[in-house]
């Protein structure tokens, strides 16, 4: 349950988890996030850290806090589109860095990716 790696601040790892939930659609636009304490219990994290995660996401415009009501996923489609795009880029650059570190050329990476997608066709769901 509490799988955090030890080299990155926990508040950032938690923020990334929530962003992925939003992009996957597990958290819908306008949906209320768990309270700070509930999120703390669910993820085994200090409430102060959760608070910081929520503040960070709020600064990025991904969630908004309504006084007395809680924290909600933004309903702004632009924000969500940007989030989708930036998670995609982050994932791709992680992959590409790993490939380059092993000495693969751009052409090999692209060809390999195409092959993989063709072979795996139907294995990943499209939506």
């Amino acid at each position: 349950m509490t799988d955090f790696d030890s080299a990155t601040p926990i508040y950032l790892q938690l923020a990334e988890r929530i962003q992925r939930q939003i992009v996957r659609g597990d958290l819908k636009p306008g949906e209320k996030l768990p309270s700070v304490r509930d999120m703390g219990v669910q993820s085994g994290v200090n409430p102060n850290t959760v608070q910081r995660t929520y503040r960070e996401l709020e600064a990025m415009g991904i969630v908004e806090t309504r006084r007395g009501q809680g924290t909600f996923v933004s309903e702004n489609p632009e924000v969500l589109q940007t989030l989708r795009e930036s998670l995609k880029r982050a994932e791709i650059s992680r992959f590409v860095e790993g490939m380059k570190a092993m000495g693969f050329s751009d052409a090999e990476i692209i060809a390999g990716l195409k092959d993989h997608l063709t072979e795996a066709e139907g294995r990943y769901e499209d939506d």
Partner: protein
Amino acid sequence: MRMIKFEHVGKRYLKKVALKDINLELKPGKIVGLIGENGSGKSTTLKLIAGLIQPTSGVVTVNGRRVTRRISEHVAYLSELDEFYGFFTVGEMIAFFASQYPDFNREKAEEIRRFMKLAPDSKIKNLSKGNRGRLKIVLTLAREVPVVLMDEPLSGLDPMVRDAIVKGLISFIDLERQIVLITTHEIKEVETILDEVLLIKGGEIIGHKNVEELRDRENLGLVEWMTKVYAGDCPPTV
């Protein structure tokens, strides 16, 4: 502003030096871990804050007041030892604590007891070690005091109980008002709930860090950092 402060605090037991010239300030709203090998001075530090022992030199203050035995009005202390009356039931023990401490919140105690899945009519002498550990958490966290001290709350307990205790801490600590100090060897288990960590070795504080900053600036988790500082590879910052 409530705060724990050590000024040049030393503690000797006969010839044995337990703590040397400790200077320390802790602010409220935090969960602070005290880590270090056996006999390094972790428990002594907690007992000084609880007023259970007096420093040989220097001054310990809580909330600006010099610590005496009467500090227990402001400090809840969970001992490493079991010191229960075996003939009491869980419910009677809760009632007994409520009668001893005016700050004891019975409703909160009931809530934590249910969270910890303890039956009110179980006799304490029949409780497993894990359930006695759970009961201690109920009794400690039901007190509405600014300072909560927990000496090895996880030690010797199975993983399920440890998880319940960590979750109980997250659920029931009031970080708007309280500071919590925990001594532990189970570093991995508490790492995600700590704000700050104090590393103690041979009676001295050799490191005092914000846990998130440690990850942010040095890309180190607690275990790696502790190993490094203990080995003397990285300059301690107090």
